[in-house]
């Protein structure tokens, strides 16, 4: 095992521990969000995003880390996102949570994991066709919101954080 492997393992253990303690690994929690009945996974994700966003933007401004945007490949993200949403709703897990669910004893997650591995193999076979079609539709490149909107990130980050806190207050008021 190299440093990269050890680092990944420890990061993963901490991530899995927090996912389990936050109770977001359950099929019921994933479905609950999609049925708009239980917003646990949104509370978890948005809390992670706000905290992470502030730290990452500070470190990036200080020149300590580099941002790594995924390409804004419009057709691929719209169609791929729709396919993912469809499969996610049926399976009730996403790639990261499926292995965590298996860890907390929900052994039926193995079927979802097997399906996702099969899906990856299917995608590898489809890739040559997709590369000249869906993946080539409209790629805006690796873009961030601040430069796209022409607004400083230090305007967006506070607004996003306040908006998220407002959303949380609303969730709590509604008992979601």
């Amino acid at each position: 095992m190299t440093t990269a492997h050890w680092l990944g393992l420890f990061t993963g253990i901490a991530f899995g521990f927090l996912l389990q303690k936050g109770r977001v690994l359950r099929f019921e929690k994933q479905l609950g969000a999609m049925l708009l009945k239980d917003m646990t996974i949104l509370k978890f994700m948005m809390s992670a995003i706000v905290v992470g966003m502030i730290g990452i933007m500070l470190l990036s401004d200080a020149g300590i880390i580099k941002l790594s945007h995924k390409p804004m490949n419009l057709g691929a993200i719209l169609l791929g996102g729709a396919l993912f949403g469809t499969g996610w709703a049926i399976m009730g897990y996403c790639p990261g949570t499926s292995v965590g669910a298996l860890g907390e004893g929900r052994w039926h997650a193995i079927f979802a994991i097997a399906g996702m591995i099969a899906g990856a193999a299917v995608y590898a076979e489809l890739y040559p066709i997709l590369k000249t079609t869906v993946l080539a539709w409209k790629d805006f490149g690796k873009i961030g919101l601040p430069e796209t909107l022409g607004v400083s990130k230090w305007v967006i980050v506070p607004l996003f954080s306040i908006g998220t806190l407002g959303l949380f207050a609303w969730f709590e008021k509604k008992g979601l």
Partner: protein
Amino acid sequence: MSPESSDGGWSPYLAGALVGVLAIVSVFATTTLLGKGSYLGASTTFVRAAGLLQQTVAPEHVAANEYFKKEKVMVDWQFMIIIGIFVGALAASQTDKSFKLESVPPEWEKRFGPSVGKRAIGAFLGGIVAMVGARMADGCPSGHGLSGLMQLSVSGFVALGMFFSVGILVAGLVYRRRRS
């Protein structure tokens, strides 16, 4: 916002905020220790796992496949994260006795009954569709959702918006009907 959730876990706000801290530490650690900053993600590992499994029966096919060549079939940093998630969740579930062997999710059972076979088929097919979608979109709720939004990536916002809006639509169609 109490520190504990009703089922004995931690508040999702607290656990989530700690994942935010983990994400920051992780980018910093990969930048300083590995020379290149990496952001949390999960779905690429499923490609590598598919490649590793296929290699055992058809190594030439895997070696010739353009996508496997692009993503590199190997156990890397992110692959270890996925293994770690399993270990971490197992450990956490032992600390508060929330570990439970379950053959069908209770909510699924309410809609589709207790058949393990039915759940297996549903989860397997759902998994195929979801992973084809995640690879096409180049990320899942971890890579696009968490890591993308933290960096204010335009792609992250659009992808997470699609994941949830279509998820809500399909979940409504599939699970809202009364059990037949």
